């Protein structure tokens, strides 16, 4: 009766058989299931009329695409239908796919860490977005590319955040710089100096989760950014904002707030395996287009990959 408890999470980590596309497809299965099925039903054929656009609006909105992006996607499709003289609902699918792709393609800019050594990456985000887990996955990703990695445990606020990172470091065999209590800026400052001395390629700096409404904490993170710049001029070279894909339209406000405070250079979209909707990406692409560097599509350590608009849209509409 305890069979279900025998599931060994670690074994999945070592399972290299699934290709990246398979994994993404699997992770997005639910998204596809809801979004795609409904679209397939919708696009099954027949004449295009107003009720179809209304149905389409419903689908987009319930996928967290947001009202503004939904409106603009619909306008584009209507334009295509008129220009290309489409008169079958089946052709609507291609039109929507195309519009989606045009919206998301500009966000597909992989992270290039080659210019600097050490290349310092700072991760930020609201509480529970998945920053620490993403750091563990990123460390594994960069190591697989043959790069040396150092982790800075900059979340000195949350209980056991440091221990959580140390566990990730242990699994990846990566050194984690931390201090008892202390100042996040100081920890990351030491880490960057240590990385310089040791000739490390990549520094991953964790920070405590914060909500944009906590103005003092938003001020604190700007200070952390400045302190990193003192350890290494030009650093941090990448500021990643980690977003939980479960988040609704608030994700857009998060992007704006963190970007206004820090000039965010890239996004990480986590927990895409759980949410039925990846639609918030479209809303973000509309209002504050910042490159999506990575997406998380599963719980195992190599389930974090570079974002590909094409694969994403394909997997969504398959």
């Amino acid at each position, binding site marked *: 009766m305890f069979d279900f408890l025998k599931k060994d999470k670690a074994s999945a980590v070592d399972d290299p058989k699934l290709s990246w596309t398979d994994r993404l497809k699997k992770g997005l299965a639910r998204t596809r299931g809801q979004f795609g099925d409904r679209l397939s039903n919708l696009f099954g054929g027949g004449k295009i009329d107003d009720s179809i656009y209304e149905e389409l609006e419903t689908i987009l909105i319930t996928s967290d695409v947001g009202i503004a992006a939904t409106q603009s996607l619909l306008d584009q499709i209507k334009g295509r239908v008129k220009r290309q003289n489409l008169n079958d609902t089946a052709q609507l699918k291609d039109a929507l796919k195309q519009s989606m792709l045009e919206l998301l393609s500009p966000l597909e800019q992989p992270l290039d860490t080659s210019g600097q050594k050490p290349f310092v990456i700072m991760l930020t985000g609201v509480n*529970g977005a998945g920053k620490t887990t993403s750091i563990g996955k990123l460390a594994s990703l960069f190591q697989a590319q043959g790069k040396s990695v150092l982790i800075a445990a900059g979340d000195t606020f949350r209980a056991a955040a440091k221990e959580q990172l140390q566990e990730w470091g242990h699994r990846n065999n990566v050194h984690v710089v931390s201090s008892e209590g202390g100042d996040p800026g100081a920890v990351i400052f030491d880490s960057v100096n240590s990385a310089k001395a040791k000739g490390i390629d990549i520094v991953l700096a964790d920070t405590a989760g914060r909500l944009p409404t906590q103005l003092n904490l938003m001020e604190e993170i700007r200070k952390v950014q400045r302190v990193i710049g003192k350890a290494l001029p030009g650093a941090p070279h990448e500021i990643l904002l980690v977003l939980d894909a479960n988040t609704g339209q608030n*994700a857009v406000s998060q992007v704006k707030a963190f970007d206004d405070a820090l000039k965010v250079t890239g996004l990480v979209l986590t927990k895409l395996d759980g949410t039925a909707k990846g639609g918030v990406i479209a809303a973000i692409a509309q209002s504050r287009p910042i490159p999506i560097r990575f997406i998380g599509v599963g719980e195992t350590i190599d389930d974090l990959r570079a974002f590909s608009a094409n694969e994403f849209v394909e997997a969504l509409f398959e």
Partner: protein
Amino acid sequence: MLENLTGRLQSVLKTLRGQARLTEANIADAMREVRMALLEADVALPVVKDFIAQVKLRAQGREVIQSLTPGQAVIQVVHEELTALMGKENVTLNLSTVPPAVILMAGLQGSGKTTTSAKLAKLLKEQKKKVLLVSADVYRPAAIDQLRTLARTLEIDFFQSDISQKPALIAGDSLDFAKRGYYDVVIFDTAGRLGIDEEMMAEIKELHTILKPIETLFVVDAMQGQDAVNTARSFNDVLPLTGIVLTKMDGDSRGGAALSVRHVTGKPIKFVGVSEKVDGLEPFYPERMASRILGMGDVLSLIEQAQKNVDLAEAQKVAEKLKSGKGFDLNDFKSQMQQMRKMGGVGALMDKMPTQMSGMAGKMNSEDAEKSLRRIEGIINSMTPLERSRPDIIKATRKRRIAAGSGVQVQDVNRLLNQFEEIQKMMKMFSKGGMGKFMRAMQGRFPGVG
């Protein structure tokens, strides 16, 4: 919290307020706006549809049409329906069982289960309960450490579990331990899981069977989008949930998840998390929340907070002085500011005020206000007791000394004294003219405002 929704509804309803007659057309306009506002606020679409249908039906009904102020009547309907949607009244924890009463925490990854467990433990400890915290999160690295650290900080007993153990084993052992130790309450934290992860859902179902919890709380991130409906449904299908905790309400500008989850599960929202600090857990009051969405302010919970944090004897003393309009000196001024800080500062207070009042404060930056309050306190601290009780004796030499002592310019001391004089005048007005006159007079005179 929820400002955007409040703002949207208010701008819609403002136009309604002025209208003498309701027509089908302007009701439809208003309902369209309400629909957009709710959708933008991440309320799930099916919930929005139900809500709109209900409000529309009632808005077209007799009670509204025959009302002298139909606009007001519509607002009343929206308010009532919003309250009804979120549950009629606050439902508290039910712990009446043979101890130990077990509280099982469930939810998605990163929704805030561990933090909420600690907050809940603190709340129950304050009610003189003997509480045991247990973590069965053997998956996320250092999750058990996190709860242990929180337990230690709060001086609450912690059941030592280990990642090599099966959660079911931890459940059985901790329950035995709690029985032998005569604990009143066991708070059982679990790993975050997806509603579609069948193995993990089976695991928590098993835990539920072993623990037989009297409360099974579903922890939801208030920032969650449309998918809140699906998540809530999948947890509700597997577990007999008894209540909901909405977390991160302090950061959320919209909060539509509250409406969705409540609608789908039919289970009461029992608590809301309003801060990442350990005391940031408040009871959820549907009526107050509805009022707040409509901009009527959360005055009731403000009063409760005041009762909790304010030194009553001190407040009584000041109130007496206020009433008489005599003898209000800088000592009282300072103690009032300290009371205010105890209640979470200017920002937290303004957040709970009705929008008419907080709107009056305009573009006040609560950060700045906070800063200026701290400075004023510093200046008062640099005064002698005599100066505090008789500010009129403070002349040039004293001002220079006070300025040097508190690290400010003489102008700052002057400004404080002027402000204090104004407030003294207002206090007199207050004792004579009552609240309305007082509020009008307050405009622009609050430190840091305008």
